[in-house]
């Protein structure tokens, strides 16, 4: 048994290494999120603090540890036979769609 000498009284750094504005813009782009200019410094601050905080994980020795793949030991995702089980309910589902025509979801033109 080993002890990290950790406790739940985390010391949260008030001056974490700041992500750059460009990094935040890049993350937002990858996540397909349009941010308002005023949101950028807020996320710059809080995401930097979060990554600093989760850096605590480096203190654990995980050299010979397998990553957890399922919360229940020995279980994995079940497969089912590849057969049709659902009936066609597209009209019901499409009632929630912002824009539909002839049973198709409409989006701005993709190919010129």
């Amino acid at each position: 048994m080993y002890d990290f000498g950790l406790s739940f009284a985390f010391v949260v750094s008030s001056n974490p290494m700041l992500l750059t504005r460009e990094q935040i813009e890049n993350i937002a782009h990858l996540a397909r999120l349009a941010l308002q200019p005023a949101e950028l410094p807020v996320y710059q601050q809080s995401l930097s603090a979060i990554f600093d905080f989760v850096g605590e994980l480096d203190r654990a020795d995980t050299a010979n540890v397998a990553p957890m793949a399922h919360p229940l030991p020995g279980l994995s995702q079940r497969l089912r036979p590849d057969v049709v089980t659902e009936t066609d309910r597209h009209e019901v589902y499409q009632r929630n769609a912002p824009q539909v025509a002839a049973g198709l979801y409409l989006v701005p033109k993709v190919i010129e």
Partner: protein
Amino acid sequence: MKIHTLTLAQLSKGLRAREFSSVDLVRGFLDRIDAHQPTLNAMITVMRDQALSAAEAADRELAAGRGGPLAGLPIVHKDLFCTEGVLTTCGSHMLDNFVSPYDATVVAKLKAAGAITLAKSNMDEFAMGSSNETSYFGPVRNPWNTDLVPGGSSGGSAAAVAARLVPAATATDTGGSIRQPAALCGVTGVKPTYGRVSRYGMIAFASSLDQGGVIAATAADAALILREMSGFDANDSTSVDMPVPDYMAGLDAPLAGMKIGLLKEFFDKGLDAENEKRIREALAIYERLGATLREVSLPNLPLSVPAYYVVAPAECSSNLARFDGVRFGHRAKDPRDLMDLYKRSRGEGFGAEVKRRIMTGTYVLSAGYYDAYYLKAQKVRQLISADFKRAFSEVDVLMGPTTPTPAFPIGAKTSDPITMYLNDIYTIGANLAGLPAMSIPCGFTAGLPVGLQIVGPHFSEGKLLNAAHVFQRETDWHTRVPERFS
């Protein structure tokens, strides 16, 4: 008669004995929901007409001597359980126009057992929050002091049960979202083993952590609901195919000889001194009931919060990719092109905390960072899980506080996400390891409820409910109702 002070078991008995009808009950609780909505904001959608016609049907069943185990009994669903033909918002602007085309398995099962849905409860947006302040529909207020938060993310369900607006409500727990609000509102909340309750139709946040459960006034009522909502479901690929025990049958088993582990790390710095006193007093009651106490250490447990804030956002960023403004949910006006449609629909539809978690998850999964964050966190999760396994080779259950402090003021922690995240320091471990856990009221500090947390090995819900029920036979904390709602 004050129907709202009765337990589900008493209400069911009264229905069968024709002391009152289901319509009486449903109307009575609906009136309470409406009367206290301006104060508590516990609900997002109230289903008066549907509930009353379901109650009329239930009365006909009951009159004919039929009806399931929950026939005619009122319930509320957290607004992330899909309900056919009813608005299902997940507390978000993104889904504020979403009418679900189907019922979640939990909703269908409780309906089949005879329960009547009165309303959809308010919650943190996409279940991401510990105070109910991230809801697009405004914060829920704590019935014990309306200047305070009820906890989250199942704050609407917890506040509603605490104020006796409904006898029981469904809830979900990804990092503490059943137990933490149950503790802060002084009610009983059960987060079952991962896979015990179907996640089909539960709007996903973090799929390896999310688990549906129940909040009720008593452990016996929670057992009654849990028995009906649990069980295998082919529609959920992580649902576990194991028989559901009769949770009601084992409630009164004596606790003599039960080995209770006290988590050393839970009684460390950070725990409010008054909270600790209430927990120690509760533990003394367990000792008197014949249980033995022993300190155990889970050395990796302090890493559960950082591990969670990698794993949960990673899964969230992936799950919430489906909200793209195309098939359902909010769509931005006049998009220039497809990319603009995606980005503005998501930027406008999601609130600040949801965006923060999506970006956190996107970053930890992005090229070059996967090993350092996500893989590392999943390894730490394995260590935490092994710690629990070792502890359960020595003790039957673990006990400790559910939260470090009682309820805090609305607005007190919104500016610093990490301070907010640390509300869940005692609850997250059970999610990472997929374990069942519950919170029960064990006293008050300065007029605010304190919750005792009980954690057990996989599929030990029956043992947890037994420990909680026997405690509730000895104490009356679970019967306390804030004065203005009594």
